[in-house]
């Protein structure tokens, strides 16, 4: 019942959320999950290829909720299966500033 009563100290995005900062957050988060260096993350590779199972996919969606401060579909990582796809989708939906090209 009291699970989660303590303050959530998880990683947050400093300043306004943009597509770029969201993408960076996803890279860091995935790197931490699969225990590799952020620079090794390939943003075109699917989450499944990184070994994320359905439970973890829902957890990532839950962590994203806290970053974006809104409810998100738990199936988000199934609908958008790479970091590039997911970050551009979220940026479009949330009208975030686009990533620098």
């Amino acid at each position, binding site marked *: 019942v009291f699970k*989660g*009563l303590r303050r959530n100290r998880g990683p947050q995005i400093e300043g306004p959320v943009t597509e770029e900062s969201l993408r960076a957050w996803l890279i860091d988060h995935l790197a931490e999950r699969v225990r590799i260096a952020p620079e090794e993350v390939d943003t075109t590779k699917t989450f499944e290829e990184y070994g994320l199972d359905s439970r973890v996919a829902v957890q990532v969606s839950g962590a994203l909720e806290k970053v974006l*401060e*809104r*409810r998100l*579909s*738990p*199936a988000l990582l199934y609908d958008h*299966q790479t970091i590039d796809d997911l970050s551009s989708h979220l940026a479009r*939906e949330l009208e975030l500033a686009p990533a620098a090209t």
Partner: protein
Amino acid sequence: VAFSFPSAPDERFEEFMRKAEALEGERLAKAIPRECFEPRVSRGLLGFAVSWAVYLGAVAGLLLAPHWLLWIPLWIVAGLGGWGLHVIAHDCGHGSFSRSQRFNDAIGHVALLPLMYPFHAWRHVHYMHHSHANNIELDTDWRPLPPDAFRRLPLWRKAVYGATRTWAFWGGTINYWLSSAFRPSFYPSARMRREVRLSIAFVLLVGVPYLVALTWLTGVGGLLVLFVGPVGGDARVVQHDDAHAPQRRGRAVPDVRALDAQREPAPRDDRLPVPPVARLPDARHRGPHAPPRRAGDPVLQPAPRAGRAQGGYPGMLREQDLRPGELWKIVRSLHLYDTESGFYSDFSGKPVPQDAKAEAPAEKVESHA
């Protein structure tokens, strides 16, 4: 693999969605007369006092009852008092109890004490429900599972799901409390979590001494009879659907930026302080035929009778008090989400048939106790 539900929607589903899309951009509150949004504080306070009196009177009766056979009716009476208080808290949550948000918050906190439910936790989870009603992924109140997902549940969760959709439908609120009442992490925004923590602190500050004193004076048996029993009596049906309202997948990122717009006054509940015995508030509080809302629209609530008088949304707005026959239909067959049709199936996977009555214009099926 990405999925899309329903996979084979029939004409009923398509018709519903056509009607819903025709309402895009409409402010549903326009169908409700302006005077319904005017709070009547004295009436609300009377309802608050009557409900507390019913609750406390029943608890006193439990304390003095000469025989345990009297406990059950007294639990039900106490539960009805708690029920009335829940309706008050609901009005407070939607800003229709008074024009003062602080006063609404104060009354709401006190009204939910018999349930030991932190008011802001309830308020935010309730807003989430209104923002995602009938969304099979995000509705916090009622989310039927597809058969495959149900089969994959661990045994315990399968048992809870099965029970709360059938014989233990009244226990759904306990499950609701467990999942959201004392879990700030359940809420997506930092501000929500801060408010929820404040409410938790209030409940602990008042509730813990009360429960400790109760246990000290009457023992564990007294705690069960005088607190847990009335909570059980207050359990209500958390069910906002009937067989004819399709469930759907929403956008993967629903627009919930306007969650707090639900602080806007909603139509007040004019049936307070009617003795709560005749009322099943949650069961009627949102018409099952109400269309998917645009975020930011004020919550559509108990004044649809008035809305009808203004010709509001025929076929899409329906208010109906819960009757035993309806309740039986719900527990008998509205169990799982039929991924093909977008409507319900029972536990055997059989789609729930639609009857002619629900296809009739809404005005013909509405009824009130």
